[in-house]
């Protein structure tokens, strides 16, 4: 192998980033692997332009939400009702608003996870590959692959980053997974709605901000560190970029959360993130994939205890308000060609695994359970108002997968479904990774198990 074709990687990002002009978008070609080859063309649905992944961080209990199983453990105020003409039983007390939105939702009850530990399962969910210590840093997430594939559809007027992640900070575990061996510009823009959105300068502070910016300019003009290192040049480009972003009225509107709107979205971090996701998508200005983490679902203890800050009631209430309003707004808003935005936006809502069933544990909670969990799908061509798949009476095991394949649905299939809806050929392979191991967007194998991966077709027909 010649020297030129060996991808050169170092531990510091800045070493691999090319020269910087005003904007780092005009970077020299990355010394990073990006050649992607398609084995054979997959048949693609192409029904969606955008995707919002609502991640129920920690693993939501299937039997207390959308695969409801009543038992002696069920508190009466869950208010179990049969909704939508007998379609399903739902804890109306927990999810009253979504109970009225089932027309938009497809409920898939035959999902299994490969992993039952958070860190590994969350990696799997984001990358659709098992975490491998040797390859961990080079594997791109689904979001980064979408960002990469969507580059071709990027208009010159697009100004928003393709991949945005919200509320999934450095709390532990895998955290948000970015571009891996792909171009670092495909890394997500990470926002924390609980902290300030620093890109928005409040109107009242605008004058102060401008005065300070001017002073900073004068001081930088007088003494500045230039040419001392690449990292400094990179940083200056980011400064200029951040500043132009902050000056732009359009962006500050997109990244603003109006107080009145917060209420309709349930006044939670999840609701705030959904408002921003809606704005980012509705701007139709380059954002294609929004990953939102809703933390707290890991209810090992006191799951039904209302006196605890996080419990089944609070979490469901947050999800109920945020997702319902998001669906409402996206069906109301139109794309530039007058299609309801929801028709062009695939929404996936799920945790990394399910939870144990039956009576609560000694800790009055539910533990990790990978053999059955429920995922919600909406928009982007998905036909709502239906339930796919069936679990046993306890909700612990899939008894009917409800799709063409005689097995449960796995993360790989969900990835294929997302890629297919977005019109992305998931049959591709990145061949020149740093480790030399090819990276298939979706691998037809998990560990040593062969997997005939495929789209969850019944969602769309």
């Amino acid at each position, binding site marked *: 192998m010649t020297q030129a074709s060996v991808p050169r990687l170092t531990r510091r990002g800045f070493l691999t980033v090319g020269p910087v002009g005003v904007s780092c978008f005009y970077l020299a070609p990355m010394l990073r692997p990006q050649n992607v080859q398609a084995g054979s063309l997959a048949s693609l649905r192409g029904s969606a332009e955008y995707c919002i992944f609502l991640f129920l961080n920690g693993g939501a209990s299937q039997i207390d939400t959308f695969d409801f199983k009543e038992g002696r453990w069920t508190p009466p105020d869950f208010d179990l009702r049969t909704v939508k003409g007998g379609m399903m039983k739902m804890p109306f007390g927990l999810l009253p608003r979504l109970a009225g939105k089932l027309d938009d939702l497809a409920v898939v009850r035959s999902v299994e996870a490969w992993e039952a530990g958070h860190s590994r399962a969350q990696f799997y969910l984001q990358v659709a590959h098992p975490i491998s210590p040797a390859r961990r*840093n*080079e594997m791109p997430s689904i979001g980064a692959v979408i960002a990469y594939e969507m580059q071709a559809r990027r208009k010159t*007027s697009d100004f928003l980053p393709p991949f945005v992640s919200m509320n999934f900070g450095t709390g532990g575990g895998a955290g948000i997974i970015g571009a891996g061996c792909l171009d670092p510009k495909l890394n997500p*823009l990470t926002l924390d709605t609980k902290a300030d959105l620093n890109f928005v300068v409040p109107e009242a502070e605008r004058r102060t901000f401008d005065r300070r910016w001017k002073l900073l300019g004068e001081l930088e003009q007088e003494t500045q560190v*230039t040419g001392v290192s690449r990292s400094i040049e990179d940083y200056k480009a980011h400064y200029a970029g951040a500043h132009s972003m902050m000056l732009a009225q359009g962006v500050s509107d997109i990244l603003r959360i109006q107080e009145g709107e917060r209420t309709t979205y349930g006044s939670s971090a999840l609701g705030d993130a959904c408002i921003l996701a809606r704005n980012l998508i509705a701007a139709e200005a380059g954002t294609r994939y929004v990953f939102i983490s809703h933390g707290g679902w890991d209810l090992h203890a006191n799951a039904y205890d209302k006196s605890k800050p996080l419990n089944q009631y609070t979490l469901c209430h947050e999800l109920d308000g945020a997702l319902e309003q998001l669906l409402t707004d996206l069906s109301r808003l139109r794309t530039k060609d007058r299609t309801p935005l929801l028709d062009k936006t695939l929404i996936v809502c799920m945790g990394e695994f399910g939870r144990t069933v039956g009576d609560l544990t000694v800790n009055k909670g539910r533990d990790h359970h990978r053999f059955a969990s429920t995922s919600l799908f909406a928009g982007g061509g998905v036909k709502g108002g239906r339930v796919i798949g069936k679990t046993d009476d306890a909700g612990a095991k899939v008894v009917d997968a409800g799709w063409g394949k005689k097995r449960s649905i796995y993360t790989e299939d969900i990835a294929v479904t997302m890629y297919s809806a977005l019109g992305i050929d998931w049959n591709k392979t990145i061949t020149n990774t740093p480790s030399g191991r090819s990276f298939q967007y979706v691998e037809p194998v998990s560990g040593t198990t062969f997997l005939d991966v495929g789209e969850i077709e019944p969602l769309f027909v």
Partner: protein
Amino acid sequence: MRSRAFGWLIFAGATCFCAAAGEKAVSKHPANPSGSAAAELDELTSRVGSRLPKSEARVTESTHRNNYIDEVIFGKMEQDRIPHARLSSDEEFLRRIHLDLTGRIPLPEQVRKFVADQSPHKRDRIIDELTDAKVDPAAIEHPSFPFLDRWTYFFCDLFRNAAAEIGVKGRNLFWDYVHTALLLDIPYNRFVAEMLTATTLSNWQSGASGLLARNHADDADGLAINHEDTIEDIAITTTRYFLGVNLECVACHDGAGHLEKINLYLSHKKREELWKHASFFGGVKIYRAFGIGQEFAVLDEKPRFDLKYPSVKRVQRYTRDISPAFLFNGELPREGESRRQAYARMLTSHPQFARTAVNLIWSEMMDVGIVDPPLDFDLDRQDPKNPPPLPWTVQPTHPELLDALASDFVAHNYSLRHVMKTIAKSSAYQLSAQFDGQWKPDYARYWARHFARRLSAEQLYDAIAQATDVFVDIPIAGTAEKVKYAMQARDPADFSGKALENVRALLADFGQSNRDQGEKSLASSMVQASALLNSALIKNRVKADRGRLKRLLKADPLLSNEAITEELFLSSVGRFPTNREKHIGAAQIQEYRETGAEDLLWSLLNKTEFLFNH
């Protein structure tokens, strides 16, 4: 037309933002067979020559060769006729040495004192002062000494010490253990051997057991420990931390057919050799003594490494009896020696042990390792007398220097402090980050100038707190202690709670390690820029009614605007302002009084110079 221009304007910025936001450290494979990483540094930089004040009067005339490091570094440059930067100015040096040794920027009075000092040995003296912790037996439990905090944080990041993994008590004890080892400058070989051989009924009782306990690998159910995965992890991480070789790849498959282009040495290694290496820990049993929680017993109980046991992390192992043999030379345990003792002995006495330690410290102080990344050695590419086949080149930029540093380390009883001082006292370390003349990418591998790098998340927060003199208590979980500096925290979990929300956000934005899968990152992003420009944390701390600014504005007798400006420069960027800067700053205060002073402090915190260690 208007909307078009608007689009481009934002386009320029917004795309930037996805360029580096959230970037993690890249692959650990040193996949560059021909050049050193140092050579890559700055390879595309064309604009050269900082306009930072040069304080010529204080620059040492010629570059004096202070120790053996300089003989090698400057000798090689002389031989190859490579020009190099001048020696750093006193102010440049002082800020750098403070950041590198203590993680903090210097205080204004420290800058004044140092600049005024006429002694020719003042640089050596400040290095000794900053490094040598005074042992006060009364306060031995938590002596506050910035040097110890900074390097304890460094090793706790390396060992991924985290409450989430080994419990708050375990984390605190492990931190104490590292802190004490550094305080007493325990020989590094002893320090490491102790961790490798620690035995305890609970890691909440023994700090030294933290390293092994931290490597527990949960089983699929998340409660029981997968013994085989655990001991593989212990073997892999300890080989990486202490011998600088990354065995991850050969933990799943033989090197042949995979690693030829990545690591020549490892391409000959077999998976079975990794198992033999790991089976030194086959007799260790790590388990949750109480069934749940993060409290672990670390005991020598289980007889061996059982390959039949399924892996939840790696490609399945196949059945075979495995007995221990050291991966690097096939050495077997001696008669009467426990397996772990044997491993600790072999590891700490291997020449690569000292080389890895000195290279790691070098990299932390010089930004790039002599072998880089510092924990990715290719052992077949170390000896210039026995060079690897083309296109590979010898991996270290200065092999003789790496050996010299290692021998010196061993000769000084494995004193980490000695290595740090030796590096800091060299003229090579003290070169300016500025380069007069035309910089060429080739110069980088010679260390022809100092390399600038961004302050780490913790360093940056601490610098902001210290420059503004506005601190907030950081309560240490599991203790009654409250600290002021982020670098004193035991792990990122200490930044929890409402009061620290802004601090936590800043640290996350600037790439703090979460000590799990998320590694520390010094990459830059637009999110970071927006945080410095517009976060509540910055806006609140530069207010005139608090901290340093209040003190300066309310001083009695009243300070001149020039004096206030000077003090703000000293406390943030660690140098005196130029005349023009003094004029600009004073004019801003003159015009807007308190608001103007706030503007100035805000601007200084946003100066690139502030954000970088240069």
